[in-house]
C-alpha cells in the first residue's frame, strides 16, 4: 500500500492504523494529518489495500 507525503511515496503493509503507518515511515504523528480516499480522517483509521493515502504536513508557510 502506498502513502504519499509531499513529493515522496512510501510503501507499507495494509491493515494497520494510520498512526502506526506514520511511525513506521519515520514520521511524527503529531506533525501530519491523514487524508484517505480524499477524506480527512483521524489517525486511528485502519488502512486497507487499495486506499489512496496522503499525509498533509501541519507545518507549512513560513
Amino acid at each position, binding site marked *: 500500500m502506498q502513502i504519499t507525503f509531499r513529493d515522496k511515496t512510501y510503501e507499507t503493509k495494509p491493515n494497520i492504523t494510520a498512526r502506526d503507518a506514520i511511525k513506521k515511515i519515520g514520521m511524527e504523528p503529531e*506533525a501530519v494529518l491523514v487524508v484517505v480516499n480524499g*477524506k480527512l480522517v*483521524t489517525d486511528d483509521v485502519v488502512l486497507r489495500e487499495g486506499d489512496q493515502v496522503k499525509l498533509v504536513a501541519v507545518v*507549512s*508557510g*513560513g
Partner: protein
Amino acid sequence: MRCKKCNTNAVINMRHHKLALCGEHYGEWFLAQTDRAIEKYKMFSRDERVLVAVSGGKDSLSLWDALLRLGYQADGLYIGLGINDPAPYSDVSLDKTRAFLESVIASREAAKQSPTSDAEIASQTPLAMTFTPTLHVVDVQETYGKTIPQIAQEKNRGHGKPCSSCGLTKRYVMNRLALEKGYTVLATGHNLDDEAAVLFQNTLRWQTQYLARQSPTLPASHEGLVKKVKPFVRFYERETATYALVRELDYVYDECPHAVGNLTNFYKTLLNQLEANSPGAKLSFYLEFLRARGEGVFDGFNQQDQLHACEVCGQPTTAPGRCAFCRMWDVSAIVQ
C-alpha cells in the same frame, strides 16, 4: 473515531481536550474557540478595524476567514518579500491570498443577492454581511529597492539566512501600515506550536526580557506602536491545518525555502515528540507560562518603557538614533 456531537466520522481527535469532532462540528468549535480567545485576552471588539497579516499560509488565511465569519471588520496586509528563487514562493503566496479574498467577496455578494437560511450566514451580524474586506499589498522591492534575500545577503545579517532581515522588515512594515491606515489592532496567525517553540527557545536561554514580552496580546504600550494580537494562540498547529482543510482553503502548502530546517521547526519537532507521549504537554507548557506571567513572575524584566523615536522614521526603537530597520535599509530620510 466518532464525532462526540453527532457520532459521524471524526476528522480530528484532540487528545489534549479528549474531544473528537466531524468537519461540521469542528468548524463550529473552532470559531467559538477563536471568539473565546479574542474575548479572554481582550484583543478587540466588533467595532474595531482589524488588520490581519496574511502570508497565504494556512494560519493567516484561516485567521482572516474565521474573523470574517465571526463578523469582525478584518482587512488583510500582504508583504511581498521577493522570495522567488528557486521557486516563485512569494508570487504564489500573493496569488493565493488574492484568490481567497476574491472568493470571500464573491460569496458575500451572492449571499446579498439571495439570502438563504444557511446557518453560517444567519449567524453573521448585519455588519459582517455589509463589510467588504480589503487587501493591502506592500512589495518590499518596489518600496525599498531590494528583495529580502538581496538585502540579507548585502548586509550579511542572520548567518547566511534571510530570516532575521525578513522578520525585522515584516514587523516594521506591519506596524507602519497599521498606523498609517488607522487600524487599532494588528492580528497575526501565530498558533500554539509557534508560541511553545519560541517559549522553549527563550527558556533554554533564560531570555527573561523576551519571556516578559511574550503574550497573546501586546498593547500599544508606546506612541507609534500598534496593538498586536494572536487569536490562534490556543490552537495546535494541526488544528489550524485541519480548519484550513475543512474549509477547503487553498493555502501555500510548501514551507518558505529559507525556513526549512530552522531552529524553530527543530523545537517544534521536539515538542511534538513530547506531545505524542504526553498529550496536552504543549498546551500546559504554554498556558502555565501565561499563568506565571500573569502573576507577575517576569514583570521586573520588561524594559519596554525605555524606547526612543527613530530619528529618521519616528517609529519606536530601543536605542537612540536610527532604528534597526532604517539602519539595515540605509534609510536616511523619509520623503513625504
